[in-house]
């Protein structure tokens, strides 16, 4: 039991949400990435007037449509879960979280629903330029939808622009711009969208390579690879930049997540960045003094540089964050986990006293308790933490997910450079070894994409809202077995839908770009 809540209920609620989010995220990045690639291809058609670009754009548009149709509305299930499984959370932050989600719904409906119809039904019925504008507006609509979803997610990682109202027990938005344009939201948006572009590019290169392996549709495949390789390379370089920005934001707002990403237990100046490493499973205590790695290769000073833009800077490790006592940038001394937990309990007790005084209409007591609550609200969530070690996220999963994502990001840069160079020299069509590499890179792009979300979401545990509300306080008081049942229902439903998508997608790929019917 944790705070009167069955821990299995927390685990099943988290597992169910993770399953839904990860399934939803199978479709979104391909929509975002492939959407831009098909729009570029159609732009080339309109610019050059060459029919083969039209066929190329139409084929990728067909695969985009399949992915879109199967993926559309899978995100709705997460909204159901908010209302049923995460009701405390939904009430507590609904005023803030609801706004970006509502905007997303409106934008998605009006922009995507309107222009996607013209994109599919409008060939030869509207002018070339109007059709092209519709194609771009469809993908811009999808990307804007992603913006609002990522604003909502970023607010959970860095709650800003709000104030807690103990009368309604809700956080209320004070500054919309602080929520919508927080540095975490801006960085997360660009990092997520650009990495989705990489996935789209790898998908196009992989599918095209399959045609080259089969020695069919060679011209189509080479054209597609040229566009996708350049697009993917550009996206990869920009993703390196936004990845650096993300690491900086994590270091500033979620230092425990950064420590878990790097397996850093003991903070240090001139902190090194682990390039490759294997964690030692024998390390079971954060303060046992054991080396956390069985083996690792690191880049000296790089973590200090990434986290603080200064190679001399101190980067706190897990032990420092739990024990406190180190000097913060503003010159103050970091609180220990125990001190934060105590302040959190003071905040929650003040809320209890405030609510009791409210029932008694005791304005003086309410003002006093409100003042105590406001002074300690920044630590509110720590009041639910039972042990300081509960503040440590799963280090192994976060560490490996982060390093897999980074390693695959580097691999994709090489992949894009190599495919583009081989294609430019006219050697790609005969390089069968490269076709296999490109084809098997498709699942790697999905692994990298999912790994990124694992870092973001597992790395911030135990928090649903950073420092304000842990998952244990966010969930509804349900029967764990009912959440478990719906988990398995989703698992079956999602598997069936995924099989349906894969079979329709593979059938369309096997059929190829020949004999396309434009209204498909």
């Amino acid at each position, binding site marked *: 039991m944790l705070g009167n809540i069955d821990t299995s209920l927390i685990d099943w609620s988290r597992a169910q949400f993770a399953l839904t989010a990860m399934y939803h995220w199978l479709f979104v990045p391909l929509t975002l990435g492939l959407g831009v690639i098909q729009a570029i291809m159609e732009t080339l058609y309109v610019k050059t007037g060459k029919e083969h670009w039209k066929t190329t754009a139409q084929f990728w548009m*067909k695969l985009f449509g399949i992915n879109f149709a199967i993926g559309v509305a899978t995100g709705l299930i997460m909204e*159901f879960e908010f209302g049923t499984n995460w009701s405390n959370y939904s009430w507590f932050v609904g005023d803030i979280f609801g706004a970006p989600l509502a905007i997303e719904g409106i934008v998605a409906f009006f922009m995507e629903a309107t222009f996607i119809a013209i994109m599919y039904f409008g060939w030869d*019925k509207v002018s070339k330029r109007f059709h092209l504008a519709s194609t771009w507006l469809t993908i811009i609509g999808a990307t804007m939808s992603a913006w609002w979803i990522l604003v909502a997610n970023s607010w959970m990682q860095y709650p800003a622009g709000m104030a807690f109202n103990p009368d309604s*027990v809700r956080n209320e938005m004070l500054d919309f711009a602080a929520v919508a344009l927080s540095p975490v939201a801006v960085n997360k948006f660009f990092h997520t969208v650009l990495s989705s572009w990489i996935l789209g590019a790898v998908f196009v290169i992989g599918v095209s390579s399959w045609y080259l392996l089969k020695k069919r549709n060679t011209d189509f495949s080479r054209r597609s690879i040229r566009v996708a390789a350049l697009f993917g390379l550009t996206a990869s370089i920009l993703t390196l930049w936004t990845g650096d920005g993300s690491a900086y934001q994590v270091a500033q707002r979620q230092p425990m997540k950064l420590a878990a990403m790097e397996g850093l237990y003991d903070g240090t100046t001139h902190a090194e960045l682990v390039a490759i490493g294997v964690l030692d499973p024998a390390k079971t205590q954060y303060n046992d003094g054991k080396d956390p790695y069985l083996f690792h290769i690191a880049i000296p000073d790089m973590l200090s540089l990434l986290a603080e833009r200064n190679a001399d800077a101190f980067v706190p490790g897990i032990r420092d964050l739990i024990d406190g006592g180190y000097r913060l940038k503003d010159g103050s001394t970091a609180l220990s986990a125990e001190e934060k937990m105590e302040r959190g309990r003071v905040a929650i007790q003040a809320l209890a006293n405030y609510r009791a005084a409210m029932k008694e209409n005791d304005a003086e007591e309410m003002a006093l308790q409100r003042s105590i609550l406001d002074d300690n609200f920044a630590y509110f969530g720590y009041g639910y933490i039972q042990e300081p070690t509960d503040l440590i996220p799963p280090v192994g999963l976060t560490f490996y997910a982060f390093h897999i994502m980074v390693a695959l990001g580097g691999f994709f840069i090489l992949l894009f450079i190599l495919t583009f160079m081989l294609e430019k020299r006219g050697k790609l069509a005969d390089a069968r070894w490269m076709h296999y590499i490109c084809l098997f890179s498709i699942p790697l792009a999905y692994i990298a994409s999912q790994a990124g979300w694992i870092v973001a979401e597992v790395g911030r545990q135990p928090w649903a809202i950073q420092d304000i509300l842990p998952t244990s306080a966010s969930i509804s008081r349900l029967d764990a077995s009912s959440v478990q049942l719906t988990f398995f229902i989703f698992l079956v439903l999602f598997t069936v839908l995924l099989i349906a998508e894969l079979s329709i997608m593979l059938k369309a790929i096997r059929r190829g770009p020949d004999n396309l019917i434009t*209204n498909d």
Partner: protein
Amino acid sequence: MNLVSRIFRFYADGFRSMTLGKTLWVIIGVKLFIMFAILKWLFFPDFLGKFGGEEAKSEYISSELIHRAINP
């Protein structure tokens, strides 16, 4: 033909001449039916809906948030 009927014809012709799109629409329809008519209705009721007004909901949530940290 006025604008509304032209738009209607545009959509109607588009849907009529779909091939693979028809299968995809069936999948979308089945999926939405499962989501709204089965999952939402059977498994995902509005948890706070049973509390009626806003005041009762905030009272329940405050009680939950307080008692999960401080045992009564």
